[in-house]
């Protein structure tokens, strides 16, 4: 079982005295750290700009702060602080989207849709962007981020991806895609909350005798260029799927590589198509309305193979 974030923080803090936590009304996530090392967990109030500035200052003092807020707000309200104080400053700060990645809070309305989190974080030079898909990958990303020198973003995830081997047999290498399924009909690439949709689509297609490759792109930056190149070379169709705007996120990252390589492999980007998801509905409803589902992947593949 993956360790919860709070426990991993305590463990990392025991190994490295530079590790500390800063919370923007996310205290629960660093309360264990506060208990173990009072003073190394700091609450800054509901104030994302303050959160990042304070974390930058801690980094000036050689600390390694993990700065936590809610995904849409910790990537948007303080974007310039992240860009200038962390990116330009090359500060060793880990920005943590603690809850609400992508469309997780679909029913709470557009203010709470973190549809720009990947695009915004990708924009910043030197930023490593992790979009883990479950508890195991989250724990691994947190450990990896602590070891990376420089700013990182992690959108925390929980639960367990279906059909995975025991944790001690799984591998998480930053910047390297995880191959969840092999097939020659198409490659489906997903990150964070859409990896389950890609897995499901792989199963649905297999039932129809169509084998697709499914890649879990847990590191969106630096992206696994080799995996993208291989997909273009070995499968006649690439589909990306994200709970984010297709502008600037995973789909864009893949498109940039394909275009620059002169690849002729068609690409379909599933995600929010430059729109706000204005509707009352559950997570599943909003995803269905905007074609961010396993069924949408299946339809794309069927359309191409002419079945």
């Amino acid at each position, binding site marked *: 079982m993956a360790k919860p974030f709070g426990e991993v923080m305590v463990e990392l803090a025991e190994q490295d005295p530079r590790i500390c936590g800063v919370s923007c009304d996310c205290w629960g996530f660093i309360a264990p750290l506060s208990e173990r090392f009072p003073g190394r967990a700091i609450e800054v109030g509901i104030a994302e700009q303050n959160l990042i500035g304070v974390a930058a200052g801690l980094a000036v003092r050689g600390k390694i702060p993990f700065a936590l807020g809610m995904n849409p707000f910790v990537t948007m309200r303080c974007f310039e602080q992240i860009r200038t104080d962390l990116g330009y400053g090359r500060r060793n700060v880990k920005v943590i989207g603690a809850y609400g990645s992508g469309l997780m809070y679909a029913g709470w309305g557009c203010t*709470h849709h973190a549809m720009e989190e990947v695009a915004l974080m990708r924009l910043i030079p030197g930023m490593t962007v992790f979009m883990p898909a479950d508890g195991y990958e989250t724990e691994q990303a947190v450990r990896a981020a602590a070891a990376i020198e420089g700013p990182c973003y992690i959108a925390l995830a929980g639960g367990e991806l279906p059909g995975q081997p025991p944790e001690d047999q799984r591998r998480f290498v930053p910047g390297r895609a995880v191959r969840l399924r092999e097939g020659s009909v198409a490659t489906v690439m997903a990150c964070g909350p859409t990896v389950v949709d890609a897995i499901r689509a792989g199963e649905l297609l297999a039932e129809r005798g169509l084998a697709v490759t499914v890649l879990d792109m847990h590191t969106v930056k630096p992206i696994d260029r080799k995996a993208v190149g291989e997909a273009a070379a070995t499968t006649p169709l690439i589909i990306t799927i994200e709970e984010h705007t297709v502008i600037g996120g995973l789909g864009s990252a893949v498109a940039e590589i394909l275009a620059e390589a002169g690849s002729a492999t068609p690409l379909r980007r599933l995600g929010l198509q430059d729109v706000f998801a204005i509707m009352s509905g559950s997570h599943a409803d909003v995803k269905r309305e905007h074609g961010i589902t396993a069924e949408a992947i299946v339809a794309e593949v069927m359309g191409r193979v002419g079945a």
Partner: protein
Amino acid sequence: MGSQHEALIADLRETARQIRVNVLRIAGMSDCHTGGSLSIADLLAGLYFHAMRVDPKQPDWDGRDYFVLSKGHCVPALDAALALRGFFPVEALTTHLEPGSIISGHACAHLTPGIDASTGSLGHGLSVGLGIALGVRIDRGANRVFVMLGDGELQEGSNWEAAMAAAHHKADPLVAIVDRNHYQTGPTEDMMALEPLAEKWTAFGWAVRCIDGHDMEQIVEALDALPFEPGRPSLILADTVKGKGVSFIETHHMAHFNAEQLEAALAEVGAGAVRHG
């Protein structure tokens, strides 16, 4: 006169109770920011059923007073007030998450009649309210602008940018109400102390009045006295209880009631017959 006033107060208290009943019904449907919704029920009754000039049949009426729920997560209370005031049927309140519903999880100007600003990201409302007030000034209008702020929300620096600008521009049609319920996701003074809060607003140039946000007499008195000082924006610092009216969720930020809890909660606010429209 005296008895008329008493009737008004009694009527507003009953409206506040109706708002609470409907907030609880919404909390019986899905995750709901119940605590901060219940703490503003009395204030919303005073605003929508006494102070504010609005026309439910014409939500976009140019002469309306504006209301911005900066603490947009407490939209269940606002939706309840709007429905009771006649902006849409009370039955719509419990349709959240249903296809085609006009009810959103946070205040949404696109979906819900009577809402002018989409909110939910804390720290936006006061600047938007100031902008509306300054727009009204350009048009020489008489509209007033009410902005409801959370106390935890005040930790966002943008509020203080707006507070400074409102006083600078002598925006006296602008009224901010702070729902001082002493909790955000935890106790506000432990997480990031706000006190001395009244003094902060005074220092920023606002005319401040402190009231008990559950005392309808005090609410009406404050709303009738606006603007507190000509040439200054007005601040009502309303002392409230998060989750007011339902003992077992007081201080709680969120709730999603099961049937049993819903019944117990409704019993506490005395859910008799529910008024429709």
